[in-house]
């Protein structure tokens, strides 16, 4: 792993890190990745796909709450709001 790989990862993760910290992360990541790579030893060819079968647990999008009952509480937690909306910098 090189400087540019760490920079790419930080940018994908939307995290600003300093040059120094990036160098420290290279060392940490290499030791962690070398440890977790132990799972490469395991023959997973015969894994039963049903053991970890995933199913949709989302509820139907019905019976919404009455509009506005939580708006004030929720907006109170937002760093920037305007006229009942959350405000962000323009992106266009």
């Amino acid at each position, binding site marked *: 792993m090189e400087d540019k790989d760490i920079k790419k*990862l930080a940018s994908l993760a*939307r995290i600003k*890190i300093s040059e120094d910290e990036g160098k420290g*992360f290279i060392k940490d990541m290499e030791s962690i990745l070398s440890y977790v790579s132990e799972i490469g030893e*395991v023959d*997973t060819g015969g*894994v039963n796909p049903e053991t970890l079968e995933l199913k949709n647990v989302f509820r139907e999008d019905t019976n919404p709450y009455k509009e506005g009952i939580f708006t004030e509480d929720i907006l*109170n937690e937002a760093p920037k709001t305007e006229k009942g909306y959350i405000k962000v*910098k323009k992106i266009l």
Partner: protein
Amino acid sequence: MQIDLAKLTVKEARDHMRAGDFSCVELVELYLDVAKNKNGDINAYIEIYDDVLEKAKEADGRIKNGESGELLGIPLAMKDNILVKGKKASASSRILENYTAVYDATVTEKLKNAGAVFLGRTNMDEFAMGSSTESSYYGPTKNPIDTDRVPGGSSGGSAAALAMNGALASLGSDTGGSIRQPASFCGLVGLKPTYGAVSRFGLMAMASSLDQIGPIGKSVEDTEILFKVIKGYDHMDSTSSKKADEDVLEDKKQLTIGVPANLLEMPGIDKDVLENFNHSIESLKKAGFGIKEIKLEYAKYSLPAYYIIMPAEVSSNLARFDGVKYGFLKEGENLLEDYLQTRGEGFGKETRRRIMLGTYVLSAGYYDAYYNKANAVRSLIIEDFNKAFKGVDLIATPTTPTPAFKIGEKSKDPLAMYLSDIFTAPANIAGIPSISIPSGVAERDGKNLPLGLQLMATHFREDLLFGVGKAFEKI
């Protein structure tokens, strides 16, 4: 009557308050005193709530009226990642330093309905990422048994609050050992329930296929009382299971405990820990339990698989912290800079490291080798346990490979810290219930440091953990 906080249990406190031996206000005043005297040094609580005495008075009124809530007047501590409406909840992170919960977690609502009184919120590793409570934005928590040492983590504050006699019981969350390991380091009982047994609605998500809320207490019975209050199906948590509401009817006379010998041969396990564990197994044998050596072929891959699956889920769960909807915002020149700076300064180092690790194992080109492979290994581990539980009722291991380590000893070496979870992570990977029970001590620097015995059972068989746990406590 004179109250001995060190010995008092939930059940005794409840009986005494009902009998009028002491009031909830008297009990709470004692805890507030302890917090005032000791918390500056121990740092178990981030905040003591300002309405504790008011709530205690309300509980006393209800006790006088003859009401009989399961936890009426019982003072509890809450981990800082579980929501209590109107109170701050920060997951011990700068990014949520000023966040106020806008609703109650399901467990909070259940505890309130049962009459519990919340003393305050406890310190933790930031977003529950750690095994020592050193990664908190609010500084480390110390182990009350030896203040040079860590209380374990991530629920270190919830364990230390009890160990300093600053609460009767507490709630924590456990993703890879975060309830059981601090319980073990502080001489307490900690339960990680079956995946799906306790609703996570209102728990800040870390790794959603692994997280569970559970109790920490001074006895097996106390954790059982709390577990029965908080468990149950909840339509607000899509991973909650209806099985959580079913009663177990089977009542076996002779129980067999499996000992996975090959797991005990892994490197890095302290000699005193192994000796204490062998002694515990001997005692259980003498007490009449069947003991059977078993082999868990794949369980030793739980920890490496865990440190792929967990950061992958972390990187996705923590994407919501963007300085837009809630929490800390550090402004930059444009929206992208807002995100980069908010997350760069709002998250601590370990959190940043795990998000980046998760981003790496999920990125194109590495996804199959890491994330998919880890999930395939996870399937093998689950089958491993399923097979084992056909021959034994419970599986025992030590809870931790060492007694409590020193503050600063592992905080510079993430991998060394990760290895603390070697015995606890398998239960999260397999989704099975697991409990840690005090099993003796190891002497270090003239101090007796607690050790723990871990018992695991198959899904939704917490009853077996409580049954054998109570028998083990009496030995």
